[in-house]
């Protein structure tokens, strides 16, 4: 396995804490006890069974982006409470808790970055923030990501990990699907590439909007990806779901994604894919 040379081991103290308090933790895939530091060095991929554990946003940047650097766009956008929604706790209370726990304003980072010196517009969902759900902030930032990329004639690389719609924003959450896809469609119409990267899990309203509209769709090994939740399907059809249902390998088999890539392969292959998809623009410039 090859990992980026410029990786910074360990990440922030806060990330470490979310990985477990001790120096050791159990692999979710094979139950092997692993050193936390060793796991951090392999970007949370188990060296024994290659299980891909959750990776914090800053570590994704370290893994994929030149110098781990992202020049953020719209980082100061925060959600309102248009429905005045409450389910025991109010939506503002839930937002505040998520902001406290993650240090992020909402469930996505977007901005300008580069891979192998090739400039890209980059977005990454943040599953730890309310399940990566897409409310108005996420929808707005994705729309601006594609608009900004179109303006600067950049490809978009978008990492997704989301349970779907943000219930607390109700129907306005559904509207973000149309908003984001419309912006993505304009970017596509301008002849620019979109790499759609589906991480664990990508479901519901995010799956059913831009997730599968990439020029190339890439999934992480074993990632759960699908339209409907397993429980909803089981209740509807009154039968158990087959082993491996809605996993990345299932999607590859059914022709819904182009590639399954282990984390260690992603950076290199994104770079190669973009070099192919942008070959014509390089010719034009050259």
């Amino acid at each position, binding site marked *: 396995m090859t990992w980026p040379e410029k990786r910074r081991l360990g990440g922030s103290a806060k990330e470490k804490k979310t990985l477990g308090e001790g120096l050791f933790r159990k692999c979710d895939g094979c139950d092997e006890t692993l050193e936390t530091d060793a796991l951090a060095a392999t970007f949370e991929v188990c060296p024994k069974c290659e299980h891909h554990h959750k990776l914090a946003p800053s570590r994704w940047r370290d893994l994929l982006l030149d110098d781990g650097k992202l020049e953020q766009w719209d980082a100061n956008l925060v959600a309102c409470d248009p429905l005045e929604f409450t389910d025991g706790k109010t939506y503002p209370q839930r937002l505040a808790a998520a902001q406290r726990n993650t240090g992020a304003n909402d469930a996505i980072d977007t901005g300008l970055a580069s891979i192998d010196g090739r400039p890209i517009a980059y977005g990454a969902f943040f599953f730890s923030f309310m399940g990566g759900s897409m409310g108005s902030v996420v929808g707005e930032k994705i729309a601006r990501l594609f608009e900004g990329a179109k303006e600067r004639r950049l490809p978009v690389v978008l990492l997704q990990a989301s349970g779907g719609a943000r219930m607390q924003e109700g129907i306005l959450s559904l509207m973000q699907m149309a908003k984001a896809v419309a912006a993505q469609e304009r970017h596509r119409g301008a002849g620019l590439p979109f790499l759609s990267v589906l991480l664990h899990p990508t479901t519901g309203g995010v799956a*059913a909007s831009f997730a599968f509209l990439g020029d190339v769709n890439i999934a992480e090994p074993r990632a759960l990806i699908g339209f409907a939740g397993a429980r909803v399907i089981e209740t509807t059809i009154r039968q158990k779901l087959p082993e491996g249902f809605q996993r990345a390998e299932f999607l590859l088999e059914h022709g819904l994604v182009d590639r399954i890539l282990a984390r260690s392969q992603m950076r290199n292959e994104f770079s190669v894919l973009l070099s192919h998809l942008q070959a014509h623009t390089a010719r034009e410039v050259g």
Partner: protein
Amino acid sequence: MASHVLPFEKPLAELLDRVAGLRAALGSDPSLRVELERLEAHAAVVARMLFSELTPWQKVQLSRHPKRPYTLDYIQHLISDFVELHGDRRFSEDAAIVAGLGRFGGRSVLVIGHQKGRAAKENVKRNFGMAQPEGYRKADRLYTIADRFQLPILSFVDTPGAYPGIGAEERGQSEAIGACLATLSRVGVPVITTIIGEGGSGGALALAVANRVHVLEYGTYAVISPEGCASILWKDGTKAPEAAERMRMTAPELLKLGVVDRIVCEPSGGAHRDAAATAALVGQAIEEALTELLPLSREELVNDRYARFRRLGTVRIAS
């Protein structure tokens, strides 16, 4: 008649039954006319009373009323020379979405809508209005035809949602819906959506990326069913009435949020009491929207639709 009556409609249904009985007897006994007129006036008052203070949950029930007019009823009343078109050209036909070419107010259009069934057998065929990927791929194919031949798109939304099943996942339900959103966002023709019943999540939105979105007075539009919302929030699907309130899914709230542009009033007692009158009101609203949109160029139509969805949602700058 006794079946398909919601509990809160009962007093009205009984009155209307008596009205119908009197009207039938009128031929043999003209002296009943006075009593008939009195009863009709009374029924109108009762209808107004019962329907003036409906809870969101009661509106949800009305939106799902098994006697409510469905897409094919609107086609029958509003569209002439209708030619239904079938199939997605890839896998199969899907009767949960009906579509075809027809004439509305003398103008050729593409009509498309979810279709529920009336009886058990038809509901199997229509899958209760829950489309498989093939339904959305048929929609996508026909949107492109509408774009090529400059046909305005009139869509009718009435679905609990896209079908959740094994085959649906295997054949890319997500991709099929996403593709519809993308295609509808770029077609250079007027798109006018009317939510005639249930607007259930992504399966509804795949037919509703429109320049104008209308909703019937007792139509609903939501990101998840109230039952689904309740089972997620409180692990208890029976709390759906409470969820329906919090979700702001009724016509007046949708208008307030900017998600719909216009509410189309329903006849006294609800759309299911008079399909023809409902269709006429729906048609009137479509006609007015079309009159506004037809002068726009292809580019202006696409930009109008883009701007409409671009402004939906609320964000602020962190202080």
